[in-house]
């Protein structure tokens, strides 16, 4: 049931609009489209390799999931490309692909009630590095006038809005590695409340740069399995030694059910649940009993009016860090009880690496494709599970099973947690 346009004047809308996904796209280390990425995931292909974007000679970590063969020429003029950081280019290309996938053009009468939220964990790190060097070496008068517009995280959403005339709410959501998932959750709220009829929403990140790799290396967060890059991201495996940085973008077109029906759009699924919490515990370590994460799962279930047993698949956060993987296991057990053992779970980060602010969005795309294809992509490299990582993590080979409701987990530094539930559409 949709709210009427008048109901935005009430503090509590009488009925919430249902939110459906009508378009999606992805640019990832395993493919420049959602379909290519999905095919490679199901086949268990890794996108991790030696870093090409800068000289890693002095760095302990020399590997990442870089997007290969990204060519924005059909989407952006050379002039525009020069003024846009890579994460912004990703967002522009992916948003156009997602709208195309949704067969949706934002015409004049749709503009005002079309919003755009794009999760970005860091922003334009490369341009920050470049201009930091400029100010030191050549002085403040040589700082580029494009430095700030290229660096700020919300410029991804800003540029997408300029391109498609999305005149509704527009900003970046920044919650580290949960940014993409939070963006989707917040976008859902705008549609439910009737403030927007549709949202272009996702996450974008590209920080395979000296500061990006160097910064996470300083925290000892990254895998240093440089001699065997494709084996480096191994969530829940005994041999895991940190995450592998990835880059890319995931994008969804969300619409109110009414709006989608009105234009007879193809509907992938319904977004039924969103839960968000904070561990309030430590800057970077998850809560020692997975408290915030399990609560976020519970809230998402409650939001979707579902019981734990209703979920069949989880696209886990699963970053391949020692502590994170264990505590996510704990959180899933806390939230699902006995049903935890029945779930199919996988971490696609085993193949894409960790896309930070884009992770929650890209993994939402993968969750939706898992739901649509009734297939859990595998967790690559899970050869020898740690003893306290004892759930069904879909090791090595994809599994087919009927899915009706799937969950996406995203957790970030700052103790932030966001969980989303995607459900088969019930008429």
């Amino acid at each position: 049931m949709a709210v009427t346009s008048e109901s935005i004047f009430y503090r509590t809308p009488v009925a919430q609009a249902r939110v459906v996904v009508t378009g999606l796209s992805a640019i990832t280390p395993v493919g420049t489209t959602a379909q290519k990425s999905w095919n490679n995931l199901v086949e268990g292909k890794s996108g991790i390799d030696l870093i090409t974007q800068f000289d890693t000679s002095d760095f302990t970590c020399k590997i990442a999931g870089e997007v290969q063969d990204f060519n924005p020429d059909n989407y952006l003029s050379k002039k525009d490309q020069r003024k846009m950081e890579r994460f912004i280019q990703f967002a522009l290309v992916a948003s156009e692909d997602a709208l195309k996938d949704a067969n949706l053009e934002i015409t004049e009468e749709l503009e005002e009630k079309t919003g755009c939220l794009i999760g970005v964990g860091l922003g334009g790190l490369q341009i920050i590095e470049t201009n930091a060097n400029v100010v030191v070496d050549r002085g403040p008068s040589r700082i580029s006038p494009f430095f700030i517009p290229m660096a700020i995280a919300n410029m991804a959403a800003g540029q997408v809005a300029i391109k498609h005339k999305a005149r509704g709410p527009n900003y970046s959501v920044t919650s580290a590695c949960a940014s993409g998932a939070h963006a989707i959750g917040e976008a859902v709220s705008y549609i439910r409340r009737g403030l927007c009829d549709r949202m272009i929403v996702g996450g974008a990140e590209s920080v395979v740069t000296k500061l990006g790799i160097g910064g996470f290396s300083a925290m000892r967060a990254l895998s240093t399995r440089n001699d065997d890059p494709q084996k480096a991201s191994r969530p829940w495996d005994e041999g895991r030694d940190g995450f592998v940085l990835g880059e890319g973008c995931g994008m969804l077109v969300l619409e109110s059910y009414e709006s989608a029906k009105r234009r007879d759009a193809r509907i992938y699924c319904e977004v039924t649940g969103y839960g968000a919490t904070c561990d309030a515990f430590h800057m970077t370590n998850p809560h020692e009993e997975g408290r915030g994460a399990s609560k976020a799962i519970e809230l998402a279930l409650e939001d979707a009016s579902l019981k734990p047993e209703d979920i069949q698949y989880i696209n886990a956060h699963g970053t391949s860090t020692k502590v994170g993987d264990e505590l996510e296991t704990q959180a899933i057990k806390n939230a699902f009880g006995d049903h935890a053992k029945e779930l199919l779970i996988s971490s696609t980060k085993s193949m894409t690496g960790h896309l930070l602010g884009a992770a929650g969005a890209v993994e939402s795309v993968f969750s939706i494709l898992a739901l649509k294809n009734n297939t859990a992509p595998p967790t690559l490299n899970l050869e020898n599970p740690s003893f306290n990582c004892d759930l069904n993590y879909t090791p090595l080979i994809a599994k087919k099973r009927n899915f009706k409701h799937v969950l996406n987990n995203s957790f970030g530094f700052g103790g932030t947690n966001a969980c989303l539930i995607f459900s088969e559409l019930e008429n």
Partner: protein
Amino acid sequence: MSVNPKLKEIISKKLSVDAERINAEASFIEDLGADSLDIMDLIMTMEEEFDIEIPDEEAEKLKTVGDVESYMKSKNVN
């Protein structure tokens, strides 16, 4: 009047416009599609390439390619 080839090259590269379109009468904003940030970027590049300094109050007056040429001539820059 033909435009200084080096200046032409800079403008063409920075604004992604064909060199033929760059003549003395061409306005950066109206004819060559520049915005205020492009103009700042262009001024900085010219300062660097011609080793000059263009104060902001002078820069504001440079609306056309010809304006830039005249300014450079007044500073004895070729």
